[in-house]
């Protein structure tokens, strides 16, 4: 008798299923897009690491069959920075939620972008703190109800693409879990991009957000993503803020070249030390020449 196996089992920890996410949650789709992107990329999986903080999205680190680190709340990026700089051969992907990355971890987000550490940050934005039961967060739209904004939210939200672009990210894109093909492409590009890349993934939280705001169920949100989105590649990040009653602007907003932290460090130190910096720096120049 042959055992039935899912074609992505080699990239998922099937022994950890079922997952913790609610029916209608979009995080599973985002995870599947990551796995499919990795499948298409064929980068060495043993050198691919997923780091997360705390929250529903952060559970992804424990469902993918890769080295996974489920760190403390907000600290996935600095942990990933240490991992990447101590072993530059690793492909380091941070997968976490908007509250984790942009509120408690906001300082690390902007500084990693400024340094241009070679990380890929995937931020699932479901507009709410899901794990703790639906409190407003740094991305919750104005007037939205949450358990801690019972009279409606009066804190303006972050426009995340603008925040990271202004901080120095070299790749910035936003998609929704409805746009899976485009999301997979974006993740592939972000993972292969050298430097700090950021993909915001809009996702429904039926339990914590939709229900409390009379926005219907997850399907309604998917319909919303389908009908109320406008794809504008290259849109100035400052103009893509999410506001109630306005179309969601999706696309690839930033894709530029800037030396990574590691490249700048090696270049700077090569002026002082013969090795290892000079040797590796010249290898890098050679590699670039071959590419062009």
């Amino acid at each position, binding site marked *: 008798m042959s055992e039935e196996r899912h074609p992505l089992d080699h990239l998922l920890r099937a*022994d950890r299923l079922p997952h913790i996410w609610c029916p209608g949650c979009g995080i599973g789709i985002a995870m599947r897009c990551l796995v499919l992107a990795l499948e298409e990329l064929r980068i060495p999986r043993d050198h691919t690491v997923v780091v997360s903080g705390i929250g529903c999205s952060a559970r992804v680190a424990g469902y993918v069959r890769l080295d996974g680190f*489920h760190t403390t709340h907000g600290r996935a990026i*600095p942990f990933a920075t*240490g991992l990447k700089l*101590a072993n530059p051969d690793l492909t380091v992907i941070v997968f976490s939620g908007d509250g984790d990355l942009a509120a408690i971890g906001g300082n690390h987000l902007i500084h990693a972008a400024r340094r241009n550490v070679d990380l890929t940050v995937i931020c699932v934005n479901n507009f709410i703190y899901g794990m703790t039961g639906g409190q407003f967060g740094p991305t919750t739209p104005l007037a939205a109800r949450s358990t801690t904004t019972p009279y409606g939210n009066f804190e303006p939200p972050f426009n995340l693409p603008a925040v990271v672009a202004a901080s120095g990210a070299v790749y910035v894109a936003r998609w929704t879990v409805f746009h899976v093909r485009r999301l997979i492409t974006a993740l592939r590009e972000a993972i292969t991009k050298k430097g700090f890349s950021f993909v915001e993934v809009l996702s429904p939280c039926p339990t914590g957000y939709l229900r409390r705001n009379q926005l219907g169920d997850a399907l309604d949100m998917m319909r919303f993503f389908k009908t109320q989105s406008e794809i504008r590649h290259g849109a100035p990040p400052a103009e893509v803020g999410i506001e109630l009653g306005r179309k969601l602007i999706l696309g690839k907003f930033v894709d530029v070249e800037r030396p990574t932290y590691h490249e700048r460090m090696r270049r700077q130190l090569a002026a002082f030390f013969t*090795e*290892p910096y000079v040797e590796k720096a010249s290898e890098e120049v050679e590699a670039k020449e071959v590419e062009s």
Partner: protein
Amino acid sequence: MKRGPAVLTGVHFINGDVACAEGALAAGCRFFAGYPITPATEIAERMAERLPEVGGTFLQMEDEIASISAVLGASWAGVKAMTATSGPGFSLMMENLGFGYMTETPCVIVNVQRGGPSTGLPTLVGQGDMMQARWGSHGDYETIALAPSSAQEMFDLTIVAFNLSEKYRLPVLIMSDAVVGHITERVIIPPEAEIPIVNRKRFAGPRGAYLPYLPEDDLVPPMVAAGEGYRVYITGLTHDERGYPSTSPDVQERLVRRLVEKVRRNAHDIIRLEERGVEDAEVVLVAYGISARVAYRAMELARAAGRRVGWLRLITVWPFPEERLRELAARVRAFIVPELNLGQIVREVERCAAGRALTIPVLRPGGAVHDPREILAAIEEAFHV
């Protein structure tokens, strides 16, 4: 310029912070992430200068939380890593320190203590973080904390700290102080071959067979690094031997007991003490860090006056050397505990004395070290009770 040697063998005239950095390099530390803070900044400065010479990585982070997080990440990349700070930064590190204990991540955290609470006395000495070192992070755990008393010990104990951290897989704390960090004295760095180095136990078996949290007889599980193909899942959640999260009280019991027991059961290997004149002593001074050096002078003065006074220096403060203190409590008249806080380690001494010997605190809330005569006065008091 060529790559510099990691071990600067020879006789140096350097301050404690610099000696600490050199000790780290000699121990094999190749990653440092930190944030400037008085009086620990010189450790970061020295590491910034020296790590590139030995092919290591120095990183100045945006805050102390990021610093310890990067250190934990680097450790999981298989690199020995350290951060250094003082009180305010130490407070910020507490949560991630707990992540280090829970995930059994070797690393070294240096706290060059200054007067507190809050911003307190940035440039002046204190020993007010000793209990925070033991209990500062939430939940149950055991730690290892060492207290250097000299620039030489900043070098020596940093190596010991790395070795213990690698051996028992946990963050090890160096609880220094502003005087020991800034004192400039002779430091002898031995030849590299004479420096004992311990490296973490590595799992080298087949990939499918690795259980990240399956301990060996010493209660310490062998470790792997990210990128080695073992596909580990490491979480701060309560986890089973596979590293998988669990909400079972049995798993919690097994894990947390082991985290605590691996230190308690190996206390004999971890604890380091220095004693003088304890054999015939009626009164024993118990001190650590800079206060131990001041207490030594008080002992000399008391001895010169004919008092049978001994001196016990805690090199390892945590785990607390309960056994030795209990032995002494059975035969001495009193313990005298001078420290630069308003009563922290003295409580431990009192607990071990358990009423069998008197415990006399000599306390200052930091800002200056004791005058040996204050301690001498306490000695006289002990002989007159």
